[in-house]
């Protein structure tokens, strides 16, 4: 089907400057196919139904809008107390000098740029493959663009329990950087890996993370997106889960003019568990979009989506979340909650929760709320001597607790709470 003219225009405008990176055989095929996908889907246009609440223009246009670099001295360095293997990317380019020795993690880690020229690689079965699976039933063209163009990223294969979490640190140093990273992770049978990510990455950042969790494997993911105010980011996670596998992903976002985080999870093996959670806090010029699509295609699987947003001074939060239960995915246990705490009357929360169920023996629930802080509770705390600011913070943390509880590791969860407390104390009414 031919694209509408407006989509054709923005797509060709963007692609005219693109030449696919030089690659070896395995990657060249993937890039060619990805570019063809972009051409047939067209890049997102603001009239697209899937972009109803978030304007994609600045994520699509050929040149990235500038973004002031956030003072690194002011950064509160998430995960600092956690023993981890650190891999640095500066404006989307791996920095070997600054990074730890990757072998310390006890898993296979390679840099995409290092193996891009080879003819065969295990990642061939996954690179762009999970992304392609995630293009049905909804197009995600910015992810296909990433598969075509990204030159850096990590390829991680875990065959056992990782010795330490792998931590990806994204630094933003150039106010005009336009970065793409593409990571591929394979968790082999019974293996177990924790991935941490933090930092703003670039003025404009497009990231894809493909994760394949084999039977009995476990993948834990916690990210703290950077505190840069002016950055724009679109990220995609594509996860495929085997039998009795576990996938848990939590994202903290504070600040950022535009962030769209898409998570696409496919439960393909029986008894698998997928939890996706997020806490987003914005003050002023902040637009944050969580778009989540969970597909149940096996027996007795559990999925949870828990998204909380704290918005003030005209900040905008978006949640589009879907649970699709395919025919035959009996005994599915699906849960979805999205909530916003509006700290003033100017902020907005736009939601589109969806359930689509083709099996008859399932339990699925979803809910969405938005509201102001509970005045009775606030007065009660104040009447005990807690000043209004800290009392509001306490209530806000309580509001976020259900999302934070999705982080399994207590030390990492405590670290995230520290970030939250810091942000709240800096952004009082």
């Amino acid at each position, binding site marked *: 089907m031919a694209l509408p003219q407006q989509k054709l225009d923005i797509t060709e405008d963007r692609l005219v400057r693109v030449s696919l990176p030089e690659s070896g055989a395995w990657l060249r095929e993937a890039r060619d196919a990805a570019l063809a996908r972009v051409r047939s889907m067209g890049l997102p246009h603001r009239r697209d139904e899937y972009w109803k609440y978030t304007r994609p223009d600045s994520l699509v246009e050929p040149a990235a809008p500038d973004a002031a670099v956030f003072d690194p001295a002011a950064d509160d360095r998430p995960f600092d107390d956690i023993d981890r293997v650190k891999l640095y990317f500066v404006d989307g380019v791996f920095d070997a000098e600054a990074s730890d020795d990757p072998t310390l993690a006890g898993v296979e880690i390679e840099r995409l740029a290092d193996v891009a020229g080879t003819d065969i690689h295990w990642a061939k079965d996954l690179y762009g493959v999970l992304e392609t699976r995630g293009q049905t039933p909804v197009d995600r063209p910015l992810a296909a663009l990433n598969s075509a163009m990204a030159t850096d990223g990590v390829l991680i294969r875990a065959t056992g329990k990782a010795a330490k979490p792998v931590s990806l640190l994204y630094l933003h140093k150039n106010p005009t950087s336009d970065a793409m990273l593409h990571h591929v992770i394979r968790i082999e049978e019974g293996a177990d890996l924790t991935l941490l990510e933090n930092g703003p990455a670039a003025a404009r950042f497009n990231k894809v993370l493909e994760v394949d969790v084999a039977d009995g494997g476990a993948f834990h993911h916690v990210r703290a997106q950077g505190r840069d105010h002016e950055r724009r980011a679109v990220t995609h996670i594509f996860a495929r889960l085997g039998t009795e596998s576990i996938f848990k992903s939590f994202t903290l976002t504070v600040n950022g003019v535009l962030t769209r985080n898409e998570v696409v999870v496919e439960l393909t093996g029986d008894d698998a568990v997928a939890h996706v959670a997020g806490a987003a806090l914005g003050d002023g010029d902040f637009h944050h979009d969580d778009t989540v699509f969970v597909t149940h295609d096996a027996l007795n699987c559990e999925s949870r989506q828990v998204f909380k947003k704290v918005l003030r001074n005209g900040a905008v939060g978006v949640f589009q979340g879907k649970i699709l239960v395919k025919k035959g995915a009996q005994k599915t246990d699906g849960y979805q909650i999205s909530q916003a705490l509006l700290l003033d009357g100017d902020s907005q929360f736009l939601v589109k929760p969806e359930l689509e169920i083709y099996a008859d023996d399932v339990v699925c629930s979803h809910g969405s709320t938005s509201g102001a802080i*509970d005045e009775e509770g606030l*007065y009660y*705390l*104040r*009447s*005990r*001597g807690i000043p209004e600011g800290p009392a509001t913070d306490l209530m806000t943390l*309580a509001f976020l607790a259900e999302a934070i509880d999705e982080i399994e590791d207590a030390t990492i969860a405590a670290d995230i709470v520290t970030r939250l407390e810091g942000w709240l104390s800096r952004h009082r009414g």
Partner: protein
Amino acid sequence: MLEIKNLHVKLEEEDKQILKGVDLAVEAGTVHAIMGPNGSGKSTLSYVLSGKDGYEVTEGAATLDGADLLDLDPEERAAAGLFLAFQYPVEIPGVGNMTFLRTAVNAQRKARGEDEMSAAEFLKVIRAKAKTLKIDADMLKRPVNVGFSGGEKKRNEILQMAMLEPKMCILDETDSGLDVDAMKLVAEGVNALRNEGRSFLVITHYQRLLDHIQPDVVHIMADGRIVKSGGPELALEVENNGYADILSEVA
């Protein structure tokens, strides 16, 4: 200690006068009781004193040890030594009872320029106080008042009072909804705090509580005013004859 003079209060949102000239003076070290029919304004008085939004003082004054209470934020009143045990304690999902209390204790200390209590010291003190009120470790860990029974909520109020050591304690119907044993626990908790520097204003419907917490003065409130004051025998009179006699006598 607490002095209320000709206090007139209306609802902020509506043209409804609730307190119509309350006069009351509670001296240091004394226990005063306020009784009165439902709707006479007892809870409103306690809310206005502790600083709840939604009320407008149209006339009169309230001071604590000479300081103007009505000018202060609720947290400043608390730090100044005022405490209200709520008739309906508020549930706060997600905020742990213990975290809440430690934050409150330390916020008050900070406001008074005192050193904060260490986590270890706090734990030691709260455990001992919780025990005498039969509050178990689980109740301390749970979110504030969430899933607490009526009696548990009231005991939790008294625990907060014991931890915060206020000088002016207002108890709004702390006895309602309590069985005899729970009421004894609460009364013991209150009596343990009685000393010459601390005063109590006990709002209640029943003589029962006053058997355990002996008041020095009893006031009867009706239609937004204190209409009669007397000794403990006034509470007995209410118990035996209801409010009708007293109200017709002052009408």
